[in-house]
């Protein structure tokens, strides 16, 4: 493999080395495993940022047999986001889950990271599915509730975990079935060959299965039940990783398939996707409305965010894709900030409900501020990062003449703002919070929250660089130039 190819494959190589070395270091104990995982994930993040400029104008094919491995601007952009989520989650785990004496936790996280990176690089159905399965199988372990680490929190029923396991298995079975149909019809696993040879009937049949599989993974209504079930009970770093990366791989996979294999069918699907997206956002808002538990509240709002991602399929224009891809970055920052703030509350006071955290800003200002910034950013308040991405999505609806959808989008956003402000208002209640006994959380957690707040502000104040990257990714996704290579 030539030097440039090696450089472009660097994130994949580093993720592989990290997974292998963390697994090997796990034998020596939790500290070596944790260190290997954190260093490796940060290295992977740096490599993904270094690789992005190399492929933003033209994609790179790294291998054709036995696996078709490639990277284009779209993949590179999402790779940056996923590795950022992994690094932030592992850092949060390092500073927050210091009582977890289980190296397998870190092994499962990095194995899942390798699965995610592999999915991004995969250009054939077999590799795609293998890495997808790796990501899912590894995720069960780190999503399992751990009662001794989050003291005072009810671990929740085992059924939540079982429901997650079952939903994921269903997702994998559906995707595998769809891929099987495509393989049977085209006689090939490479996506370019599948596109060239698969029959229309096979495309429709597999579309229903594959998109349903990713639908379940992305936790879109009505297949969303597993997400609010399991996410609140998992440790906070796992929740952050799940909400900002693992689940979003469903979006990546569906988008990749929709704009390559199922491209001829996309015009017929757009309206349906748009309606489904708006319904999903509404469901997320309504689910969040009745929540008192902060983790569950944030998880339900994440269900709604899945609908925002679906706007890319419902509008399928350059602006929509640009806005949604930029939104993926913002989701990473926002969700990590949400869950870090919640980790702060739990660490300092063993509380995580709106009612018990009344007046929390008096003694836990940093956590309250982090939650406030994340809430405002989620609801597209300038000058925060979330404003730009949602504004682009809004603009894409206006450009496409979907003014009713644009109005609905704004109204639902305001509804979500009202829901989140209920929690924020309670935290900043000046007349409550006296006598709230708190412990001082670690410096690492405070630094992480401060960095995430600063990142939300910086990206909000200087979004051009990220918007340009998202624009190139949108073009790459629409052109799919790697298939001609």
């Amino acid at each position, binding site marked *: 493999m030539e030097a440039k190819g090696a450089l472009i494959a660097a994130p994949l190589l580093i993720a592989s080395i990290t997974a292998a070395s963390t697994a090997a270091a796990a034998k020596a104990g939790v500290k070596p495993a944790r260190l290997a995982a954190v260093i490796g994930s940060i290295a992977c993040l740096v490599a993904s940022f270094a690789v992005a400029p190399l492929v933003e104008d033209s994609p790179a094919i790294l291998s054709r047999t036995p696996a078709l491995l490639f990277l284009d601007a779209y993949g590179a952009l999402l790779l940056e986001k996923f590795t950022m989520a992994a690094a932030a989650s592992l850092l949060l785990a390092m500073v927050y889950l210091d009582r977890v004496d289980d190296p397998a936790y870190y092994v499962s996280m990095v194995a899942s990271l390798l699965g995610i990176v592999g999915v991004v690089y995969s250009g054939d159905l077999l590799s795609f599915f293998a890495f997808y399965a790796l990501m899912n199988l590894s995720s069960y372990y780190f999503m399992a509730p751990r009662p001794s680490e989050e003291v005072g929190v009810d671990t929740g029923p085992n059924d939540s975990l079982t429901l997650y396991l079952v939903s994921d298995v269903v997702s994998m079975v559906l995707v595998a079935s769809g891929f099987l149909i495509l393989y049977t019809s085209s006689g090939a696993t490479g996506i370019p060959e599948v596109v060239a040879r698969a029959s229309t009937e096979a495309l429709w049949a597999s579309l229903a299965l594959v998109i349903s599989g990713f639908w379940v993974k992305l936790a879109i209504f009505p297949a969303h039940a597993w997400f609010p079930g399991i996410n609140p009970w998992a440790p906070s770093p796992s929740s952050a990783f799940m909400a900002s990366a693992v689940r979003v791989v469903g979006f990546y996979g569906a988008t990749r398939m929709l704009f390559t294999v199922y491209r001829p069918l996309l015009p017929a699907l757009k309206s349906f996707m748009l309606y489904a997206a708006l319904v999903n956002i509404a469901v997320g808002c309504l689910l969040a409305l009745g929540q008192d538990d902060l983790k569950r509240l944030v998880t339900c709002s994440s269900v709604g965010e899945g609908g925002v991602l679906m706007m890319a399929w419902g509008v399928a224009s350059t602006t929509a894709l640009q806005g949604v891809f930029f939104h993926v970055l913002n989701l990473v920052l926002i969700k990590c900030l949400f869950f870090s703030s919640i980790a702060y509350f739990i660490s300092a006071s063993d509380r995580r409900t709106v009612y018990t955290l009344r007046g929390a800003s008096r003694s836990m200002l940093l956590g309250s501020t982090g939650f406030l910034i994340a809430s405002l950013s989620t609801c597209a308040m300038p000058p925060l990062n979330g404003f730009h991405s949602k504004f682009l999505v809004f*603009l894409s609806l206006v450009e496409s003449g979907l003014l009713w959808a644009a109005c609905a989008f704004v109204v639902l956003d305001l509804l979500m703002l009202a829901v989140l402000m209920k929690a924020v208002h309670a935290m900043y209640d000046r007349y409550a919070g006296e006598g709230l006994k708190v412990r001082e959380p670690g410096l690492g957690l405070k630094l992480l929250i401060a960095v995430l707040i600063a990142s939300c502000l910086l990206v909000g104040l200087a979004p051009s660089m990220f918007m340009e990257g998202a624009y190139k990714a949108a073009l790459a996704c629409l052109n799919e130039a790697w298939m001609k290579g």
Partner: protein
Amino acid sequence: MSSLYPLLSMCLAGTFLVVTGDRLDRWASWVASLGLALALASSFIPDPVGLPFFNDALSTAFLLLILSVSLLVCVYSHRYVELDRARFFGLLCLFSLGMAGSVVSRNLVLFYVFWEFMLLPSYLLIEHWAECPKGRALAVATKYFIFTHLGGALMVVSIVTFYMSTGTFDLLELASLAVGEVGRGFELACVLMIAGLAFKVAVFPLHVWLPDAHSEAPTPISAMLSGLMVHVGIYVMVRVLGLSHHVAEHLCTPLLIGGALTLIYGSAAALMELDIKRVLAFSSISQLGYMVASMGLASALGLLAAALHAISHGLFKSLLFLTAGTLAHAAGSRDLRVLRGIGGELKVFGALFTIGALSLAAIPPLNGFFTKEFIVEAALEEGYLRLAILMLLGSALTMAYVARLICFVYGSSYRPLKEHPARSMIPPSVALGVACALGLPLGVMLLTPARDLVALGLKEHLELHVNASLLAASMLALLAGLALWFAYWRISYGVYLGRLSSLLSSGLGIDHAYSRLAKIFLRSSRALLETVEGKLRTSFLEGLPDSAMSMAKRVARLHEKLFFSKAKFLPMAARLRSMHPSRAVRWALNAGLALLALCLAWLAASLGSFRLALLVVLALALASIASWRRVKGG
């Protein structure tokens, strides 16, 4: 020149101070001053390439104005604020950040972000540290917030319209696209933007928020509001009107009328006020009227004159507010009748206040004279004689209320001082006084070939000559102003509290009209909300989440029924039922580790490098230890 480093410096200083809160109270002013000084110093470092910031003379001039005045205000405030010092200085830095970001942003979305960002710190600064009772402070700050947001709403629509008509948010690209004929969409966008900005620059009748906000805010913040914030609006208007001459011509009439009304109204109201800060606030309205009218000339000369006067006004108005605040603080009152003679007690501040006042009155050789003359000259050059006459009338009124201020400040009464001003207030006031006195070199520059430097890139080959008749007319106007003041003094000793005074103070009844409109709107909104809430609450707000949750639970129960049922005809259910989740998780982890090894081998085969072969070896080792695991808990 740099924009990024100053913004970063202010952002870091502001955020740090706001977050640390009470812990940094003693050092807050030093940290803020250091941050602003660094911002000013780093503005001379070149920016990295590719940032969406302006780097021309116009933005540089305004950025330097904002940074330097903010720094001086920060130093002035060293001993001014006692409560919540860290948050005060933090918000001050963030306020400066918003203003600076607005003037350097080339991208309209980024500009809007900074514009809105300005609002929150300024609102909090007015509301929390206001020099009036809490109830009034909240009302004043809320009025300021509402008016600014109304303008902001129009600006958002304008930005969207710009994008939809041209496909870009970049002002430089907009300028290149606007050469020649422009479409209706572009025109509409410009009109909406100017309309939105009219709220911020307090064009009559949208000015009602300004006198209250600028007078009730703490003195340092008043200096920033009147000296800097409103000029950000002027700067943006100059930018937008500079995009297309065609659009500027269309907006000529409303700007001329609005500007003229504003300058006359502001001067007349200032003449009647007794609160020194309200006098200065109304004088700001009047001076903004000059700038708006100048922009209504629809020429590069008019835009340049407005921009120069904005910079000049920023300097002397800040000086006036800082010194007036000091005098009022020392006397214990803002009433001119109580302040009578204080100039004699506090000689330095009295002298500096006088310099600022004379600059406001456009007395040569101070900076205000040259920039105001430039505006009137521009009006004459473009053939607007009636406007020039109105401006001279405004000058007469300005001279009248300036003379009134100086007479009161140096009046004959003696009252003992309530408080002596802190020493930290002197250097910033002196610096601003010196800046105002630098008007003479500015004036000389305008008459020499070096005038192109002062043109701020708005006009090529600036041609100016001394207009003796205009000079004579200006001097006559000043004398007329003095005569008016003399007559005012003779009639009522400069204190008129009749109906005209209260009418002018309340914006000719416009403030009252807005309040009534707001009350009607609130009453009908409340009625609508009660109906909506009452009728729809049970079905929508309470029922629908329950429905969504119950649907989710039904789906979950369906899952459970399918997979966890005890029915024997569902073998999968039976199998899953018998499996404890922790076993499934352990099984999954093992499977995952095995799959990990396979994936690594698959990658090695595909990428085919020696390094990957090493990975395969590691993977095989991993497979051999895959049977080992440690699972804790469920």
